[in-house]
């Protein structure tokens, strides 16, 4: 326990449905950090949120002893720096760089490509091909690593970054009746996803299926 832990004030400005918020919650949970959850209505953002994140006006925002930290992956690294127990990033500089690379790949390439499939109603062949290409890269990486998780035997930054793929994607597919990640096409990703959502520290933080299904059905409808 950190010497000043009793005095630590940790507040998370959140939206329980968001995979980006969930990344932070998983990290907080892994490290056993006590925090206050402030659920935001994104149609009516609180003055506090706008004050702490004037640049992007988004959740998650973590406020630690009055200091705001923004961007889910930046927050996760921050938590790892301050609370050293149950490390989320590897210690070795090369392994660390590799983990950051994959987390960035998931954020910059995978997730946008996947979203596009559903927001374009799966009508464009090119969009689907592009999304599958990114997934294949992840599939190959899992195959290469040959372990349960991107982090090896335990989840690390990359697994956490890919939470959308492990849980939300499946629900999006169910709501829109459009399947991208089949077991036959992406066996490694399928297996990894099952392992990830069953981790205790992850399971406890995922929003209920019913809520996400309802949200996605409302937003995207059947494709």
């Amino acid at each position, binding site marked *: 326990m950190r010497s000043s832990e009793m005095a630590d004030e940790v507040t998370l400005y959140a939206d329980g449905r968001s995979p980006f918020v969930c990344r932070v919650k998983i990290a907080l949970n892994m490290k056993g950090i006590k925090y206050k959850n402030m659920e935001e209505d994104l149609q009516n953002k609180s003055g506090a949120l706008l004050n702490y994140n004037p640049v992007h006006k988004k959740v998650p925002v973590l406020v*630690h002893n009055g200091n705001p930290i923004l961007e889910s992956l930046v927050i996760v*690294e*921050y938590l790892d720096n301050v609370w050293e127990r149950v490390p989320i990033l590897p210690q070795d*500089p090369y392994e660390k760089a590799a983990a950051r690379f994959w987390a960035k790949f998931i954020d910059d390439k995978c997730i946008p490509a996947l979203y596009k499939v559903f927001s374009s109603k799966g009508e464009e062949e090119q969009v689907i091909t592009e999304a599958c290409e990114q997934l294949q890269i992840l599939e190959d990486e899992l195959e290469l690593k040959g372990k349960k998780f991107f982090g090896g035997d335990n989840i690390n930054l990359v697994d956490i970054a890919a939470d959308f793929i492990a849980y939300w994607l499946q629900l999006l597919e169910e709501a829109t009746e459009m399947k991208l990640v089949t077991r036959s096409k992406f066996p490694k990703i399928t297996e990894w996803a099952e392992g990830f959502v069953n981790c205790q520290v992850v399971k406890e933080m995922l929003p209920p299926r019913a809520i996400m299904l309802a949200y996605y059905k409302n937003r995207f409808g059947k494709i």
Partner: protein
Amino acid sequence: MDDDVILLDFWVSVFGQRVRIALAEKGVHYENREENPQNKTPLLLEMNPVHKKIPVLIHQGKPVCESNIIVQYIDEAWHDKSPSLLPSDPYLRAQARFWADFVDKKVYESAKKIWMTEGEEDQQVAKKELIEVLKVLEGQLGEKPYLVGESFGLADIALIPFSMWFHTLNEIGKMNIERECPKLAAWVNRCMERESVSKTLPRPHKFYEFILEMQKKKGH
């Protein structure tokens, strides 16, 4: 640890320049290999199969990709060499990462639009967007010498190569970035006093020539 450091780069790339600045700050000796984006070497394709892009730092045979990630790697791998490129305080560290990421997401895209868009109206929109982004960065700078904390680091390294674009943006966009953002202009001059920066960044007119050449090829 200086042994066996190779950088795959392309002279005009702001991302490559970030890495060269970081290596120079740490005094790391390396072999610079110039890549031609139109004709990528097998080594580049092997070392960065996912993106097939420069910069790639190859250290003892192992590749590190993505410029901001490479800069952090350089800081960690050569942690025994000063200066530190990231603050030691976790909160300032988080700020450095946030702003380096902000530069990637906002500056690059809005700046590129200025020489890529056609039509007066679209260009005006692009100019406004860029100035807004630069003003946010000026806000972060405030009265400080550098973007985060008191020392030159990751966030400054992420942004400073774009200063080489200002002359081009001013010419093509018919704007005056230095006049609109004087604090940023002062910060640019401060950074340019560092040898790592002044020796790495190409002269602004060279970049302007490069862009004009590129536009000519596209038939502008």
